[in-house]
């Protein structure tokens, strides 16, 4: 019997490990390295209505225990994703979580409606960290009302459950989480990247052409753990956690904080086999901690010990 299978809205996961959006493309490259059917799910690269080239290069920069990226949502656009990428992915026995992005509500709605109908898309992940052109570029994910309204409208059109991906660049993450929960979100994914910058001291210019970029990797893990710890105690919907995951131990830390599944982003670049490695290591780790099933770990850092003692071996 598996100690790793997890049921979440729309998702029957063999295991709770999946690559994070933007860090795995549409799976093609990694499929040469290992069998994608091993993964719990795949969060594919953000899809927008039209194809996007993204930002000028350099688009990435290294930081201490992290990296900055400003890819700029490069993707082949809704039609190609639906007609080429998703059918190609359907050869694998793995649910797809489609990351949906846009610069206006209308964009999101259009993409959500269509992409959610693909047979292997089992859930959407709304990327609300994108700048909203109608409010002068303020990200959807930093204003509770805007995020809530977007969630509501996407829910109306989506054929599958909708997870909203929270931006950590806010004063009050609980307020954002509650707003999208009230908007009808079936789950949360958190966190997206922190906004950061590096400056090249030889040129005096930002290393990244776009100037600012999103900070990801182990550096941000403590921020993610804190936010999931706070949010999971205040909402009733499940959380897929992410931010700097690099080991099976990190997965447990995310579960203890309150996550029900975990995505691995940046560390795929450091070790392309990291997802299958973590999946392989989890069962032994879980048992050595005294659990029969990984789901027992969720929220253990804040659930009362009484509730949990029966889980110990």
């Amino acid at each position: 019997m598996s100690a790793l299978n997890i049921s979440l809205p729309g998702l029957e996961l063999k295991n709770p490990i999946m690559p994070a959006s933007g860090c795995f493309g549409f799976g093609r490259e990694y499929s040469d390295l290992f069998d994608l059917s091993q993964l719990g799910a795949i969060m594919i690269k953000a899809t927008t209505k039209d194809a996007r080239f993204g930002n000028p290069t350099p688009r990435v920069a290294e930081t201490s225990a992290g990296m900055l990226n400003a890819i700029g949502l490069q993707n082949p656009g809704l039609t190609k994703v639906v007609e080429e990428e998703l059918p190609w992915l359907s050869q694998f026995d793995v649910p797809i979580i489609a990351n949906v992005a846009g610069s206006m509500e209308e964009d999101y709605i259009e993409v959500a409606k269509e992409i959610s109908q693909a047979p292997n898309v089992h859930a959407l992940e709304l990327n609300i960290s994108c700048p909203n052109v109608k409010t002068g570029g303020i990200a959807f994910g930093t204003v509770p009302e805007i995020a809530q309204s977007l969630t509501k409208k996407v829910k109306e059109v989506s054929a599958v459950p909708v997870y909203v991906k929270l931006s950590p660049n806010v004063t009050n993450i609980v307020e954002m989480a509650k707003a999208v929960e009230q908007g009808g979100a079936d789950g949360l994914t958190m966190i997206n990247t922190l906004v950061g910058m590096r400056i090249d001291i030889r040129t005096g210019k930002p290393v990244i052409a776009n100037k600012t970029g999103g900070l990801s990797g182990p550096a941000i893990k403590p921020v993610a753990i804190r936010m999931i710890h706070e949010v999971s105690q205040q909402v009733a919907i499940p959380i897929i956690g992410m931010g700097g995951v690099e080991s099976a131990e990190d997965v447990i830390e995310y579960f203890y904080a309150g996550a029900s599944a975990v995505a691995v982003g940046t560390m795929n670049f450091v070790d392309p086999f990291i997802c299958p490695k973590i999946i392989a290591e989890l069962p032994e780790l879980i048992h050595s901690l005294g659990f029969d099933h990984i789901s027992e770990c969720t929220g253990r850092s804040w659930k009362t010990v009484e509730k949990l003692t029966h889980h110990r071996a």
Partner: protein
Amino acid sequence: MIKQELCQVIDQTEIATNIYELTVKGELVHEMKEPGQFVHLKVNSGLSPLLRRPISIANINQDEQTFTMIYRAEGKGTRLLATLQQGDLLDVLGPLGHGFPVEETDASDTALLVGGGIGVPPLYELSQRLTANGVKVIHVLGHQTKNAVFYEEEFKQLGPTFIATADGSYAYSGFVTDIIKNENITFDVLYTCGPTPMLRALEQEYRHKKVFLSLEERMGCGIGACFACVCHTAEDPTGVSYKKVCSDGPVFKAGEVVI
């Protein structure tokens, strides 16, 4: 096929100021097909530095199951790489990308190989392949200064070799493009790797010729998944079509992408 392997360091030598020649042994050598491919190196096991470093394959020895890289120890990662000693293990991902098309030069033709600085290394394996095919190979190699020159003898053994230094401290003073003109070098195919301004100058100058350029770009994954290293295609320079330097390149035909 791309493999990830802990390769064993066979030798590491400083062959010019801050320029290291590193030879490692591993099974992934069997996967190395084209000159101009690269590997992605994790220089230590911790998180500092976090990302892998792309380094070209400079020489492949299938019999010994080894390959050689030549790199400049400059930043955090390459300086750590330079501390590796014989017997140490190095985490290598590769071979990556598409290299120089050897088959584009016929046995009777002349190939001109133009390298600049740390763009020189992949030309060494290329030159060996070409000469093995009977191609006549001419090398024009530019370096910053005398102390940065490396592999002059090695290239000379494969064909005529001209060296330029930017500061004039050794051999020709000036740019590789000056040498090609001043020496009236003629060729059928040009292969080049080096700083972007040099590549641009060559592309410009020899637009009617067969030219293959190896590009450099900041990378994340190195395998084509993260979209860090894209460039516009030449036929759609402001549109959405693109090539990835890591997996479609690093070698492109001149005129294929915007550099």
